[in-house]
């Protein structure tokens, strides 16, 4: 049971000017599953490894339960980590792998076996305790890696893309099991992934990183409904939010030929910005095909069965752009069809600096 706090923690790799993680401030509550998400090179893994003690913290500090662990080696932090490639000890059996940490801390053999068995029971690994990792399937190895973490009942669980080596179906299944396990054990977990679907489905809160800088940390819904900047807006959500660059004309905004209705607060912010450039964001489900709106031509149809995504070519400020529109999965619209689209939901406005304009 533990709280974790990053206080302006930075990591600058030797020989590099730009920090891989740039003064990260983050509070993780006891029992929370916090997901760090971002594209590759965003510093999410580095941030996790700083917490693990595998990367030097060059500036700032990291606290677990208000204890400064910034300078402590990994073994003194009472954490467990699951690696992307699992990092199972190949020469040891499953039981030995799971009991390794206990052995290091001098737990007697009988008690060790009992704890290993208990963890194996939770993870359905009991029949495999005597096997070597090479004789296990990918999913089983993943669970052994989990088991190795559980056995020790550490303060914090660290997960570095633990599912990305599993095939798609198993990944979805394991995702649910993992979230369930975390809830049952009630442990604090920091979970790194590049997959925003994984982040949204698992995280109590999700922290979005880009270029080592924390962009936003919020509950998945908040992240989806009120992204603080253009990057988060484009990163969270699948398919991505339609982002259209536009210019202010006579104090009002217009995207793909559709006038944008602005709340009074946003309208004031739009008027207040000195540069005329803005970005208008609309999620695919907030665009509708109907009898009114602007003309477009369907260039691609992605039919998923439950829903379809239409890629529609439309005119925008003298050029062409493509917007994605969500339609019913049973829609008969085909490539080449001409149709009209309109906005029927919230619109996100981002200023010239990419920041969201406050409501």
């Amino acid at each position: 049971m533990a709280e974790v706090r990053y206080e302006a923690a930075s990591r600058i790799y030797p020989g590099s000017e730009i920090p891989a993680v740039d003064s990260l401030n983050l509070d993780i509550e006891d029992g929370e599953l916090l997901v760090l998400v971002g594209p590759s090179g965003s510093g999410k893994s580095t941030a996790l490894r700083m917490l693990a003690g595998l990367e030097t913290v060059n500036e700032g500090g990291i606290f677990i339960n208000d204890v400064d662990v910034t300078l402590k080696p990994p073994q003194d932090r009472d954490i467990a980590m699951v690696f992307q490639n699992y990092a199972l000890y190949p020469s040891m059996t499953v039981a030995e792998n799971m009991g390794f940490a206990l052995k290091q801390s001098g737990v007697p053999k009988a008690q060790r076996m009992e704890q290993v068995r208990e963890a194996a029971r939770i993870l359905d690994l009991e029949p495999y305790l005597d096997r070597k990792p090479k004789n296990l399937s990918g999913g089983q190895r993943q669970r052994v890696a989990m088991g190795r973490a559980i056995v020790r009942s550490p303060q914090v669980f660290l997960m570095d893309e633990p599912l990305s080596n599993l095939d798609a179906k198993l990944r979805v299944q394991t995702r649910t099991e993992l979230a369930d396990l975390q809830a049952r054990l009630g442990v604090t977990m920091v979970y790194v992934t590049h997959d925003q679907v994984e982040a949204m489905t698992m995280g109590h809160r999700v922290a979005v990183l880009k270029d080592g800088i924390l962009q936003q940390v919020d509950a998945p819904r908040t992240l989806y409904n009120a992204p603080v900047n253009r990057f988060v807006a484009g990163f969270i959500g699948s398919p991505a939010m339609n982002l259209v660059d536009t210019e202010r004309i006579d104090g009002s905004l217009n995207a793909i030929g559709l006038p944008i209705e602005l709340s009074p607060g946003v309208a004031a912010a739009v008027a207040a910005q000195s540069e005329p450039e803005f970005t208008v964001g609309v999620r695919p489900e907030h665009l509708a095909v109907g009898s009114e709106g602007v003309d477009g031509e369907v260039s691609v149809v992605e039919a998923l069965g439950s829903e379809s995504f239409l890629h529609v070519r439309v005119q925008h400020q003298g050029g062409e752009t493509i917007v994605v529109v969500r339609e019913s999965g049973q829609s008969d619209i085909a490539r080449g069809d001409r149709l009209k689209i309109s906005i029927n939901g919230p619109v996100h406005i981002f200023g010239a600096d990419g920041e969201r304009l406050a409501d």
Partner: protein
Amino acid sequence: MALLTRAPKAEPILGQNRVVAHLLALLTWIIGLLFFFPLFWLVLNGFKDEADANASPKLFFEPTLDRFSEVTEDNQGLLSFTEAFGNSFWIVLISTTLVMALAIPAAYALAIRPMRKWRDVLFFFISTKFLPIVGAIMPIWIIARDLDLLGTRTVLVVLYTAMNLPLAVWMLRSFFAEVPKELIEAAQIDGCSLMGQIRQVILPIVAPGLAATALLCVIFAWNEFFLAVQLNPAGASTMPVWVNSQQKFQGQFLAGLSAASVLATFPVVIAGWVAQKRMIRGLAMGAIK
């Protein structure tokens, strides 16, 4: 550096490349047999009479063990088989143990926690091998003389250790470099000490590499002749010097020399066979993914 890997099953090859593949396989066999032939001939000669061995080659002859008993007989004050074997055994064992004990930490430092300019360090190690040993024998001899080490086993232990250490460091470094770094990090998080990480996590993975490296050190030290004959030609010397002493200034000695060579080769073959069992790769499989 995969020295010996588990042999894959021959797969049937499809299409037009079949003929080429078969020709290449044939060529491989021919070259292999060509390499094997001298050894085969040596063994054959060891079981012949001197007369047969020196006559024009014939395939059928009456095999005899007489040459083996002759060469292993006590040699009136000269280096005997048992002495040479014992000396070689201890010199090789101690020098190889020293090499491994020194090379393992060095390889760890170079591969897993590389310090600055580690490539230069690696180069400096191997640079000692650039110098022909003949060019260095004079100072080595003088130093050995001044230290009262001429004619001792110690001087050969020291020199063989120095001779094999660069090679061992290079080989082990490349094996250590293949250990997934996550394994070491996992061991760190699991609370494993540095020595524990090396003993319990790294060494089991690089065991095949250790065996291969140790085997090469054994072979090189066992077969080393030049230093042995220069610094220690007499009673405390090694097997190659003993084999060399089977050359006579008069009479026929080819069969006897062959028998001696077979006896000198035998332990290396045994060592190779034992090491090969440990060299089978695939231990690291299952660590990741």
